C-alpha cells in the first residue's frame, strides 16, 4: 500500500466514523497536536471529532537526508475525538485493519506511555501501540491542555506516516517508501531534508531568530489581550518553532532552555484560557443537543 493510499484509507476510515477530515494548518509546528484543531478544540465542553495529516517540523531531528529514520519534517496522521468514545480501541483496530494491519494476523500491543508537552502545558496518559514490535501509534487521553483540566476528555491518536508506511512496505529507509507508484519519498523530500538541515544547523541567523522570538511573543500577548485568540495562537506556534530552530542551531544554553519553555508555556496558557472564555461567551456553539458532551 502506497503512502498516498494509506492516507486515503485512514481518511475514509475516520471520515466514516463521523470525523471532520481537515486540511493541514498553515503555520509551522513540531507536532499535529499543536494545531488549533487539536490544541484549542480539546478545551471546553464542546464535542469534536477530526482527522488530518499534519506536516511537522523538528529542526533538531534533521539529518541531512542521511539517516533512514530521522527527518526534519515528517507527516503525522492525527485523530482527535472528544469525548473519548467507549469503543475507541475497536475503532482504532478497525482503522489499522483497513491499512493492512489486521490485529489477528499481527501482534498488536498497548505499552504504557504517558505524554507530556511542557511548552503547551499539556499532558495525557495512554500507550504507544506496537505492531510486531514496531511503535506505530501514540494513543493518548488528554488530561490537561494549556494548564486547563480538559473535561470531557478527548482521545488523540497520532500515527507517524513515514515509519508506518516503511513498516507496511517493508522498507529499511523512509526515503525508499513509495508515496505513489513510481515516486518515492526520497524523490519528493530529500532535497528539502538536505537544505533544511543546512539551514537548521548552519545557516539560520541566530540574531534574527532571537529578535523574531521576542516580536512573536509580544504580538501573541498583545493579541490575546485583544481577545483575538486564534491570531494570538498563531504567534505562539511561531514562538515555539523559532525556539526549536534556536535550539537546533545550538544557540540556547541548557540554563536558558527552561526559561524559553516557560515563556512559550505561559503564552499557550494565555490562549487556552482565552479560547475557553471566548467559547463560553459564544455559548459553546457546538453543544447543539442537550447534554451533548457536557454533564
Amino acid at each position, binding site marked *: 500500500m502506497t503512502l498516498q493510499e494509506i492516507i486515503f484509507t485512514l481518511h475514509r476510515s475516520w471520515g466514516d466514523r463521523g470525523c471532520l477530515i481537515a486540511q493541514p494548518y498553515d503555520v509551522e509546528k513540531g507536532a499535529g497536536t499543536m494545531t488549533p484543531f487539536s490544541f484549542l478544540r480539546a478545551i471546553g465542553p464542546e464535542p469534536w471529532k477530526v482527522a488530518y495529516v499534519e506536516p511537522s517540523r523538528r529542526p533538531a531531528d534533521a539529518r541531512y537526508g542521511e539517516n*533512514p*529514520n530521522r527527518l526534519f519534517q515528517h507527516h503525522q496522521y492525527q485523530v482527535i475525538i472528544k*469525548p*473519548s*468514545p*467507549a469503543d475507541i*480501541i475497536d475503532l482504532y*483496530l478497525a482503522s489499522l485493519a483497513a491499512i493492512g494491519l489486521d*490485529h*489477528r*494476523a*499481527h*501482534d*498488536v*500491543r*498497548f*505499552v*504504557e506511555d*504517558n505524554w507530556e508537552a511542557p511548552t503547551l502545558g499539556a499532558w*495525557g*496518559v495512554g*500507550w504507544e501501540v506496537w*505492531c*510486531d*514490535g*514496531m511503535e506505530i501509534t501514540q494513543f493518548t*487521553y488528554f*488530561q490537561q491542555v494549556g494548564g486547563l483540566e480538559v*473535561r*470531557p*476528555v478527548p*482521545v488523540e491518536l497520532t500515527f507517524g506516516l513515514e515509519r508506518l508506511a516503511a*513498516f507496511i512496505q*517493508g522498507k*529499511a529507509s523512509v526515503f525508499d517508501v513509495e508515496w505513489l507508484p513510481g515516486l518515492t519519498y526520497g524523490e519528493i523530500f530529500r532535497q528539502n531534508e538536505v537544505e533544511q538541515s543546512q539551514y537548521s544547523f548552519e545557516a539560520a541567523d541566530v540574531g534574527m531568530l532571537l529578535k523574531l522570538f521576542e516580536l512573536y511573543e509580544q504580538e501573541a500577548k498583545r493579541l490575546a489581550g485583544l481577545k483575538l485568540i486564534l491570531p494570538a495562537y498563531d504567534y505562539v506556534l511561531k514562538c515555539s518553532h523559532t525556539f526549536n530552530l534556536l535550539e537546533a542551531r545550538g544557540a540556547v544554553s*541548557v*540554563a536558558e532552555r527552561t526559561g524559553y519553555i516557560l515563556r512559550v508555556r505561559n503564552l499557550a496558557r494565555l490562549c487556552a484560557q482565552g479560547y475557553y472564555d471566548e467559547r463560553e461567551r459564544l455559548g459553546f456553539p457546538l453543544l447543539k443537543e442537550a447534554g451533548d*458532551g*457536557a*454533564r
Partner: protein
Amino acid sequence: MPADLILEIGVEEFPAKAMPSTLAALAERGRHALNEARLVPGGVRAFGTPRRLTLVAGGVPDRQAPVTVEARGPAVKAAFDAGGQPTKAALGFASGQGVPVSSLERRPTPAGEYLYAVRSDPGRPALDVLAEILPQLIAGLEFPRAMRWGTVDFKFLRPIRWLLCLLGSEVVPCAVAGVASGRETYGHRALHPGRVTVPEAGSYLAQLEGAWVMADQDARRRAIQAQVAALAAEVGGVVPADPELLEEVTQLVEYPTALRGKFDARFLKLPADVLITTMKHHQRYFPVLGGDGQVLPHFITVRNGDATGLETVRRGNEHVLTARLEDAAFFYGEDLKVPLADRVETLAGVTFLEALGTMADKSRRLEQIAAGLARLAAGVLPGLDSALAARAGKLAKADLTTAVVKEFPELQGYMGREYARLSGEAQAVCQAIDEHYRPRGAGAELPGTPLGIVLAVADKLDTVAGCLGVGLNPTGSQDPYGLRRRAAGVVATLLAHDLPLDLKAAVGLVQAAYPEAVREQIAAALPAILDFLRQRTRGLLAEAGHRYDVIEAAMGTAGADDPADARRRCRALERFRAEEGFADLVVGFTRAYNIAGKAGEGPVDPARFTEPAEGALYSALERAGPPLRAALRAFDYDRFFREAAALRGPIDTFFTEVFVMAEAEAVRTNRLALVRDVARLLGAGADLSKLAGDERVAGEGR
C-alpha cells in the same frame, strides 16, 4: 448457601508495571472489606491480564453473619421518675437505639444498676451488601497517575469498560464509573472477539480459558518461562533470569506465544550491554546467551495470541530490531572516533544541577575527591593508587556525551568502562567507571574493587553534600535528586566491605572541592549533612537486625560518622551484653555518665583521695587506659569491652563506698574528675547509658 464471588473490572490495556501492586491491593482490600462486612470468605485471590482485574473470593456467605449489639444507657435511678415513668434520658436512649423503652434491660454494674439496649442484627442479604461495598472497593484503589476518560467523573489508572460481578449465579447489582454490572465478560481481543456470558461464578476461569485468556498470571508466567527456555535451548542458548522483564511481559499478554527471531551476526561486534539493552529495554525481548555467556544472534519475544501469522510477526520484529541495532552500531562507531578522555571538556555542555554547575565541574571535583579518598582509605583498602583514583574521577562522567549513552541513558558507566578500555585506560580505572554507579537499584550489586568503592563514594557524597548544601533537601516522599538512595548506597558499600572510613573527613574533601560560594553553604549545612548520613547508618543497621538501643549506644561515639566502625561496636556490644557482669558495668557507667557533666576540666589529684575505693578506682583506670585506647585504635571493640570488664569491680566499690558529692569542695571536685575520666574512657567505646532494658532495671534494683 455460601457461593463464589467474582468481581472482574474490565479495563483498557492496564499498565504492566502497575499490575503487581494493584492486584496485591485488590486482594488485600477485598479480603478486608468482606471481613468488615461480616461476609467472611473462604479464600481471596486476585488475577490480572492487560484487560481485566479480577477478585475471586471463595465461599462467601449469602447473608451477613448475625450479631448482637449491646449499648449501655442511663443509670436506672436517672431513667425513671418517682412514679416509675421513664424520664427523657431513658426515652432518648431507647429512640436513639431504635428499640421500645419496654425492651431495655436492667443490669447491675459496679457503678450501680444501668439500662441496656440489646439489639440483634440478623444480617442483610450478601447481594445487597456487596452492591454497596464493591464499588467502594474499586473507587478506593489508588494510583500515582490516575486518569479521567469520556464524560464520567471518576478516576482510575485506565478506562473501565465493563464490570462482571457474580455471587454464585446471581449478578451483584452495582455500577462504577457509569458502567453497570452484569454477567458479561470479553475474551482475547483478536482470538475471541465478542462477549462471553458467564452463567455462574464457578465457570468464569474455564470460560475465559476457552476465550483465549489465561487469567491466572502465575500460570501465564510459568508458560512464558517454559516456552522461552525451550526456544533458547533449540539454539543451544539460555535466557538469563530477569524477573522484572518476565513480570512485565506476563502483564502485556493475555495468551502468550513465544517466538524466536534472529539478527545479523555482524552486530555481535557491539558490546554485550548495548545488544542486551536494545533488545530488553526498547523491545522487551529476552536476549539469548551461549554457554560461554556470549550474546547469541537471537532474541525471543512473546506475542499476545496464538501461532496465527507467527511468521509475519517474526519478520516484523526482526525488521524493527535490525533498525534499532543499525542505529546503535552507528552511534557506537561515532563514539569510537573520539578517545574518552577527550570528551571530558564537552561535559561543560551538560548541566549537573543548576546550582552546582556542569558535569565538567563535577568531573574536576571527582578527580580531587577520589584522590583524597584514596589517600584517606589507603590504610584499609590495599592497592589504592591516588593517581589512578584521580584519573577514574576525571573520566567517570565522560561517557555522558557519547551518542550511545544519549540514546540509552541506562548504559551510563557501562559505556564509560568500554570506551575507557578501548582508549587504553588502566583496567582498574575502567572497572571503577562502571562500578561508581552502583548500587544501580534497591538491593543491586555494590561496588567491589577498591577503586570502584572510592569513586562510588566520591560521586555520591559529592551529590549529597552539594545538594544539601544548597538546600535541595528531600521532603517527605519526594527525593527528586535521589539523595537518600545515594547516601544509603555509601553506607551500604562501606558496611559490605567492613571498611572503616570517617565520613566527616570524606565530606570535608567534597567541601574543599566545591567553589567558594558552595563551600561555605556546605560548611553551614555540615551538621545536617552528617546527620543525614547518620540516619542512613541507623536505618541500615536496624535493617540488619541490630537493636535500636545498641545502635544508639554505638552512634553516641566517634563511630557515628563511620558506619563500619559503628557496626563493629554494635556487634561487640551484642556479644558482651549477654556476659555476666556486663549489666553492672552498664549501671556503673550510667551513674558515672549522669554526674560527669558536673565535673570541670581539671585533672584528678591522687593526693586528695580520702577513701581507699578512690585510689583503687584510680589505679584500675591507670592500668586499663592503655589497653583500652589501643583497642580503640585497632577498631577492636571485643577487646575493648573485655578489658573494660576490669573496671567493673572498682566502679561498683567506688559508688558503694564513696559519697561523690562530699561537702569539702576540693574532695568533691577531685571525685567528680575521677568519675568523668571513667565515663570518658568507657564512653569512647560506646555510650552505655543508651542501652535500654533488662540490665539497667535489674542493676538499679528499682
